[in-house]
């Protein structure tokens, strides 16, 4: 178990400067997702849950590029991003198990992770909802004279909803500092992209808004980070939004216990050959920062940490009844807890 103070979201975020930590975070994401699947089978998870294993490089590549006070909107498939951005395994697993130590205090659940201290808005369960919200964060950043950017993360299927189109157009005409990131994992629920979308590359759609559209190898964390750096720099410089398409793949089904029988034959195997964690581990070994034994040591360490966090969560209390009545409007208790982004580091806890 890490020392207490290194397990704050902000410390976890800052740790990502280190390449070994990036690898560890990708391992952590994978292990947390696998643990969630088991928690689901064991009846600890209510409703639904949407895993992102296979997509770890996208999450860590984004998180390592942007700053903790850049703003991120994301979806129900957001465990990976929450962890990458800095949310703790306790916060994520705790939320998914509905406990007080969850990042939304057990009120939100798997689809509604949140971590304001590292810029993560509550992840939205409605397709497309995060894109306009990111535009608004970008408007605020501009209006408040910061160079902060907003990042909207969504899936390939979400590129067919109206909010996608309206947001890209709006951001383009307003030259908003937004980076739109489509995680193209080839499926929206149980439908392969070719069944719902008449083009193969979502990035093409950038043309409709006169913004850069970039196709990125989403399995390669360095490629993700490099592409992000360009887009973020553009946004910070006031040159407007970009559309980034991260080609990736989800190893799990869409949600809960979906066996994903709709996959093309052999497709999963092909993608497993370019597993983002293995790719990055091999790279680090190649660079000489790790040896093969080191990778295994890390994996074992992360496994223990995730299991430790899980046990902490399972021992944590359920929320009090009053909690669900408290955060409706400013008349309720706790209305003074507001985090003010950017001008108030104290808000970051």
């Amino acid at each position, binding site marked *: 178990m890490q020392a207490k103070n290194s397990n704050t979201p902000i410390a976890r975020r800052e740790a990502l400067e280190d390449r070994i930590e990036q690898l560890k975070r990708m391992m952590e994401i994978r292990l947390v997702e696998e643990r969630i699947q088991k928690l689901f089978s064991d009846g600890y*998870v*209510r*409703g*639904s849950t949407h895993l992102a294993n296979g997509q770890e490089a996208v999450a860590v590549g984004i998180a390592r590029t942007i700053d903790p006070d850049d703003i991120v909107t994301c979806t129900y498939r957001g465990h990976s991003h929450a962890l990458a951005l800095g949310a703790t395994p306790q916060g994520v697993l705790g*939320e998914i198990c*509905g*406990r007080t130590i969850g990042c*939304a205090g*057990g*009120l*939100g*659940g*798997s*689809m*509604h992770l949140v971590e304001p201290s590292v810029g993560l808005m509550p992840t*939205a*369960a*409605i*397709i*497309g909802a995060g894109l306009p919200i990111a535009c608004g964060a970008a408007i605020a950043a501009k209006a408040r004279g910061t160079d902060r950017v907003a990042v909207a993360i969504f899936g390939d*299927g*979400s590129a*067919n*909803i*109206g*909010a996608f189109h309206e947001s890209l157009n709006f951001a383009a005409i307003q030259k908003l500092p937004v980076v739109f990131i489509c995680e193209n994992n080839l499926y*929206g*629920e*149980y*439908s392969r992209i070719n*069944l*719902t*979308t008449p083009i193969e590359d979502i990035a093409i759609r950038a043309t409709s808004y006169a913004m850069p559209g970039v196709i990125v190898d989403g399995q390669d964390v360095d490629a993700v980070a490099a592409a992000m750096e360009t887009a973020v720099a553009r946004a910070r410089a006031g040159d407007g939004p970009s559309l980034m398409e991260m080609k990736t793949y989800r190893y799990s089904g869409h949600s809960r216990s979906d066996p994903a029988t*709709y996959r093309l034959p052999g497709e999963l195997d092909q993608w497993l050959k370019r597993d983002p964690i293995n790719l990055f581990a091999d790279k680090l070994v190649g660079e000489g920062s790790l040896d093969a034994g080191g990778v295994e040591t890390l994996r074992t360490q992360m496994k223990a940490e995730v299991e430790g966090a899980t046990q902490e969560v399972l021992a944590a209390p*359920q*929320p009090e*009844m*009053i*909690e*669900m*009545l408290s955060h*409706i409007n400013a008349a309720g208790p706790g209305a003074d807890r507001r985090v003010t982004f950017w001008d108030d580091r104290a808000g970051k806890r």
Partner: protein
Amino acid sequence: MAMMRMRQAVMKALDDALREDPTVIMMGEDIAAAGGPFKVTEGLLEIHGPQRVIDTPISEMAFMGAAVGAAVCGMKPVVEMMFIEFIGVALDQLTTQAATMRYLSRGRLTTPLVVRASAGAGQGFGCQHSQMLDHWFRGTPGLKVCVASGSRSVYGLLRSAIEDPDPVVVLEPRILYGERDDFDEPDTFRIPLGKAEVVREGNDATIVACGQMVRVAKKAAEQDGLDAEVIDLLTIWPWDRETILKSVRKTGRLVTVEEATAGSGWGGDIVATVSTELFGALKAPPLRITLPDAPVPYNGELEARYLPSPDYVAAQTASLVSKNRIPEPWWRKAS
């Protein structure tokens, strides 16, 4: 008597409608190849083909609006909103377009379409996937709104809705999809839209409920010492004045059990109407049992408290019957 899960009753209603009427088509996300996220449309693609059971992109506006256009042009589209919240990006097409088509064409163009949606709380789907939201539709001229309470009613309502010449919303409480109920009706079985059903007779109070709250109300009414009549509203707009007034005239007391906040629930209009029509004839003030004014919580213990339970409904009703005064809701005691 045969037992059937509500999921299967939905499927049977759709299958029967598709079989009997070649103009019926279905549209929605993953309803065809995948058989639906709740498995209520399983097998329909194989039987009826991709021209009639249509998988759509994630584009609620497009397929809700397409249902309007197809309905005007002679089809009877049945649209699935996977979770009723999703119509929040497409409400215009239903309330502003579909519901005014007949009016703007003075009867020449009509929109016989059905929006089916899973709705309601109880399973930990969180606050953006657990609402009923019937108040978005209720009271829209030209639109009818129904809520199913189990296998029999979902079949009867869906068949009637699909045959109706005007747009109808049918809300299917998601929590009931897996529930097994008696089902022993022929394919010709219909529940007339606009009619409620007395599902339990009683003399001390009339409990009106719909959706999953019908079970809750029935269980409450079965508790010792209570002699309550339970009405399954079935169509919540326009609702059945006759059946409700008749019952309350007999019992002298009205209780509504609503899966809605007080500000948005259907009970306001019913209580208002009953208070007016039976002015002076009631033994006690009408009691609305609603949700607290809060989003649906994820945590299981919280969500169980959030929804009216049989014990709570029984206690509140018993208190009303014995004292002829309105008991406090739990959250006023709690906070």
